[in-house]
């Protein structure tokens, strides 16, 4: 955004200008800078951090497992209860069977937990687990925290997901 703004101003710099254009440019330039400032400000106020790791597949905290979480193909509506899948393997890719996985989470920016108590209820296939009872009660940044107990030992994994507004999805 800032980069784009810089290029725009450079492009205009060498062009011949009339008084009218100068006034217009000054107005637009002020308008543009304020919009950039405003966007930055509002982003800082309510949006998720920009450096948020949104990957749905990564190593567990201590590296004992590789964990992948999969939301439903059609993203659920706000307050609609639904299920995710969790895929668990060792770092070399071997599926991890018979794991016990506890689920926690919440909205760090609002200081509250998940509105439900999701559970990993069964193993659908080798290393593929069903995580039921997921629900997001509002738009924004949600954390999903898994506590894993399995053959390679105890470990945790944290995932971030940003739930969009219904308006943005349509």
């Amino acid at each position: 955004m800032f980069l784009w703004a810089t290029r725009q101003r450079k492009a205009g710099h060498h062009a011949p200008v009339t008084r009218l254009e100068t006034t217009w440019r000054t107005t637009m330039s002020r308008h543009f800078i304020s919009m950039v400032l405003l966007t930055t400000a509002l982003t800082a106020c309510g949006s998720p951090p920009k450096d948020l790791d949104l990957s749905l597949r990564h190593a567990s905290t201590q590296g004992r497992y590789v964990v992948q979480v999969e939301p439903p193909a059609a993203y659920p509506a706000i307050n609609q209860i639904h299920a995710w899948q969790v895929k668990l393997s060792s770092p070399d890719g071997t599926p991890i069977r018979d794991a016990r996985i506890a689920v926690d989470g919440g909205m760090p920016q609002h200081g509250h937990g998940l509105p439900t108590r999701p559970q990993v209820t069964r193993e659908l296939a080798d290393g593929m687990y069903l995580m039921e009872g997921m629900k997001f009660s509002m738009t924004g940044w949600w954390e999903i925290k898994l506590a894993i107990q399995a053959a390679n030992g105890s470990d945790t994994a944290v995932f971030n997901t940003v739930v969009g507004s219904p308006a943005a999805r349509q």
Partner: protein
Amino acid sequence: MRTLPPAEAPSVSGRGFAATLCLALVSAVFLLTGFTWADAWTAADKAVLASMTLDKLPPAPRDPSNAVAAVPAAAQFGKRLFEEVRFSRNREVSCASCHEPTRQFQDGLPVGKGVGTGSRRTMPIAGVAHGPWLFWDGRKDSLWSQALGPLEDSVEHGSNRTRIAKVLRAHYQPEYEALFGPMPDLAGLPDDAGPQGSAAEREAWQVMAAHRREHVNRVFANLGKAIAAYERTLTPGESRFDRYVRAVMARDRDGQQILSSQEVNGLRLFVGKAQCATCHNGPLLTDQHFHNTGVPARDPLRPDRGRAAATAKVLRDEFNCLGAFSDAGPGACQELRFMVTDDPALEGAFKTPSLRNVAQRAPYMHAGQIASLEGVVAHYARSPAAAVGHSELAHEGQGHTERKPIRLSESEVRDVAAFLQTLSGPIGVAE
């Protein structure tokens, strides 16, 4: 295979600083550019506003536990039952006594008054089919199960199951049987017996044969299902706020005049630093969840534990989604199966009410503790400590890491209260 380091929690102090900075930046931008408030909705703002309009309200979710929830004949039958006084102990109280159809289906009293005086505020009904939990503490998991509670409550209808079943058989047998099949024979049963009533009523209930208790329970549950079918038809109607947002989306400057500048400022605070939209979000302006916001106890000697005391009740309720009288398969009862039961935040927590038509519903909070909307907004700006459990509102100098204290000037309190006046609309009622 790509492996990434685990996500780290962003720096707390960094975000606190960012929040202060962002407010300063926003203010500076408006001062520098002379934007009018109505001009200043960003794309992100507009998305938030749009998500709060009635246009975005989906149809009420199916209730798999109630086979007649969407049957028009059940709704018509349910309306008559809703207005029926003969179920009550003194034959004077109906559901409509407290949920008055001409008053947003509530009574305007701090606490409900049936055959006696209750301990909580009568809740409005419009749009209620959208939430998974009923009552202020969510001790019921369906609208039909909720409708049964007051009938047996000693201070509401003050009635009991055999009395109710007999009244239903005497006055509504054809309507009942058209929906639910043959009504069981109730001859020889005591006039007053039930598991929630007086000692004599409980004893009379205990000595009834198990299959006859089951018959009465079935009739009782079906009564609730018909009332629920009626209540599902009650929906909030369009408000000035909805029309304003439509005008904003359409860039219709004239249309935006439907809200005053004070009301628009209140809306900006509502979705901004007043933090109302943290819980009051979506088209019904509720997250349908439970929060402790330090609302003063009605009786300081006996503070109400709210949600914390309700989860055990709904789990053992014979009329819950997993019970014998539910029409749902066990797989359908996900809200109950995955209910949060052990979170300390449930202590003293109450359901976020919808703010649709809120201006027509004084007094406020779960026991009518606050008389006016300005008083309510001032409560959040004051953020007192909770009588039981812990308020989730941040306080100055407290250890809350993510939420910032709600700071509002007196005029800002008035602006938010003014905005809340824009959420009123007609209630759709099935004929």
